[in-house]
């Protein structure tokens, strides 16, 4: 094949030259042109038709789109308690929760300070257990402050077998 034939064919296939004129005096290009026309005819025939996707394809796409949208919503959604509250409502809820916590702390603190009876406190401060003698001094037998009618404890009450009344 001559260089000029190659150029003419390329040019013809790009729609810039008429190959048929050249093919009248070139047998190689005449054969090429015949084959080319047959190919074009086949392609044209093959193109005259529709390749259709299955009818249920859109249904499948839609199903995936809805599923993806649902997944996105669940993953990016706020916690269930606040999901349906508008922005203002959420702020209000946060303020109310803080106030509730503050009131709870104050009430707890107050219950440990206020309410104690001053008279009772004075009595507790004045309470004294009457002890005869020094209970820590050996030989002294203190009376039981809780059971004064009982005999005095002698010896070491914590020593095994040493408890005597």
């Amino acid at each position, binding site marked *: 094949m001559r260089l000029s034939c190659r150029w003419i064919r390329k040019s013809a*296939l790009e729609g810039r030259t008429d190959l048929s004129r050249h093919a009248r005096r070139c047998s190689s290009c005449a054969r090429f042109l015949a084959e080319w026309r047959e190919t074009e005819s086949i392609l044209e025939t093959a193109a005259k038709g529709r390749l259709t*996707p299955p009818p249920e394809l859109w249904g499948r796409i839609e199903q995936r789109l809805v599923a993806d949208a649902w997944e996105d919503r669940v993953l990016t959604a706020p916690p269930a308690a606040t999901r349906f509250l508008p922005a203002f409502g959420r702020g209000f809820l946060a303020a109310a929760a803080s106030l509730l916590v503050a009131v709870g702390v104050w009430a707890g603190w107050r219950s440990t300070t206020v309410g104690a009876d001053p008279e009772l406190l004075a009595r507790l401060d004045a309470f004294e257990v009457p002890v005869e003698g020094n209970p820590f001094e050996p030989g002294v037998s203190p009376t039981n402050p809780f059971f004064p009618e009982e005999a005095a404890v002698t010896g070491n009450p914590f020593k095994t077998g040493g408890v005597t009344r």
Partner: protein
Amino acid sequence: MSSTNDPSELQAVVRRAQAGSLDDFQQLYSLFGEGIYAFIWRLVGSADEAEDLTQETFLKAFADLRNLRDAGQFKFWLYRIARNEVYQRIRKSKRRPEVSIDNEEIPYYEFIPDENSFPDPERRMLSRELNEVVRQCLQSLKPKYRDVFVLAVFEKMSYEDITKIVGRSLLSVKTDIYRARLAMKEALTDYLVRSRRKGVRR
């Protein structure tokens, strides 16, 4: 909307779909779904894969639709997504489809010959057969030739429109289409010669 002839109406549909309207997106599918499916089918040569990739194309399109700035470019943008999906699939599978134009087994797919062009049932059958032959020959092309060839011959797109989809220069697109045409001619001529030798009437 029944056709894509009105660009402003199409842009309005695209904008509503961008705002999240599923109904409008369905309208876009009804306008372009068949073309995208046919485009992918011719690139991959398999009805199952074409179905799967068409689905992926539209899912990706819906997810990225907000990023489309010019609604008037929707068609090219969609074809670009479809082409990328096909290329990704080819890369993942790391294989080129088997080329066998002697394969007697014709897989089922929904090719409907144009009744106006082929009123005769026999001609319609021939059209189906030729479509299958073309499918097999297309698989013998390199992917970069195949996509521009399919867009030019079957989708009837202009060279300028094809450049918007494949992202190559006009000169490169023209050259690739020329080479693809030559390769297709060789493959089809080879097929016809073999068929004639076998005595098959075509």
